[in-house]
């Protein structure tokens, strides 16, 4: 079994599309994601998942120098940011891609699949 990060990346268009959604439409997406999450748990693929607040809520901490520097906002200005993610366990990439396809449909967004580094000795 390997772990994969399934990340939901939002760009400006995705944000605009979400803002334009009615509460009912949003509710449909939430319900679909809940159903998907339950399936992940039932089939033993679930490790962790969560949706993130918007990037305005980000604080950057840099303690690589002499002093701890705390700044408002993300470290780099980007046009895309992480909206939410799943961490799943899957036997191989094909299985992870199948989960990602379902997750993408559920959350109505593109999903990026990225393998975790193997733990030493795993």
């Amino acid at each position, binding site marked *: 079994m390997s772990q994969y990060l399934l990340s939901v990346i939002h760009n400006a268009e995705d944000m605009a599309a979400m803002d334009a959604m009615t509460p009912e439409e949003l509710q449909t997406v939430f319900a679909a994601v809940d159903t998907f999450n339950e399936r992940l748990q039932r089939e033993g693929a679930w490790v962790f998942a969560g949706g993130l607040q918007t990037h305005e809520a980000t604080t950057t901490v840099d303690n690589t120098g002499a002093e701890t520097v705390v700044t408002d906002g993300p470290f780099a200005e980007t046009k895309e940011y992480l909206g939410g993610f799943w961490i799943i366990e899957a036997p191989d990439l094909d299985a992870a*891609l199948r989960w990602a396809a379902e997750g993408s449909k559920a959350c109505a967004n593109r999903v990026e699949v990225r393998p975790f580094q193997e733990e030493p000795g795993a």
Partner: protein
Amino acid sequence: MSDAHAAIERIYREEYGRVVASLVRRFGDIDIAEEAAGEALLVAMEKWPQDGVPPNPGGWLTTTAGNRAIDRIRRESHRDAKHQAALMISDDTPHEPTGPVEDDRLRLIFTCCHPALAPEARVALTLRLLGGLTVPEIAQAFLVPETTMAQRITRAKKKIKGAHIPYRVPEADDLTARLPGVLAVIYLVFNEGYLASSGEAAIREDLTAEAIRLGRILHALLPDEPEVTGLLALMLLTEARRTTRVAGGELVTLLEQDRGGWDRALIAEGHELVRSCLARAAHTGRRPGQYQLLAAINAVHTDAPSAADTQWDQIAALYDQLYAVAPSPVVALNRAVAVAELDGPEVALAQVDRLPLSGYHAWHATRADLLRRLGRSGEARAAYDAAIAATDNPAERAYLARRRGSLAPTEPG
């Protein structure tokens, strides 16, 4: 001595895909498989000239490479526990397939052509691992620097390993979705060789031969997939005309080719495959896919004793079917060529002029030919110029220049 070594190299390349695929299955690691296969070649170079080539060279190479891989893994104690474990549980089954779908090469080709890999990496990996071509050869064939090609292949192998792309033939549900990707890679390899615009001719011919070899393997492994059969037939019927395609450094169009020079054995084999596709389609009611239709079009052409005997109505009907499954302006352009024969160049030209292909040399060449037939020499000349400007292929340029030169002089004005 060097002859013996050349013979061994040839056997090695022939068996490489089988050997590597078997080792990948056994050790779960492409790098280990490739290193071990390379070591087995060195052993063969040493032993075979004295002992003679063993009766089953592929089996011999696989066994030798397997032993070398085990030695290496034992030596390198820093190899992670996973490899050790793989070693302990692995069986030493012979590499001969037990059933068609069990073939290790089939697993490996689906890995190499995985949609999670970049298309150019799929082609390169397939040629490297299944075709046994070297990195410099692949780089040369695709006209990219060797370092670029090496990086492309290394990166793809790293992704296979890191992301755990499986060595597995997709299950029936996924097979339909994944097979077109594999066929596209094989056809791309074939076309890269066949439509060579420049580069080393010998390497290029290697590519068409390799694509046909991979097509034959796939057909043997998946005999019930009609598009696999269609692709093989298409390649055979195209390859059959190869030697007549260029004469005196000039491209010869299909209709002007010396049909006596076509390879009758390949044509017979291709026709047989097309017939089996047609029979299957009639039996299952499944609409033939694009490779079967392209093969059928080529079968109609190669069936005609002379260009004048071509069944253009059949060609046009097949292009209609092709357009229904693969609607592209290039298909429409090829259909228009048949229309010109059936309904005249004026009707065809009207269709061609509507196509958004002004960057495509064949569009200009087709227009030029139609305008020439309509006696519109001035416009034909401009179209030939545009066609010549849009292609780098020297044989094609030579052909177009001669056709332009044979136009009636434009009336002054």
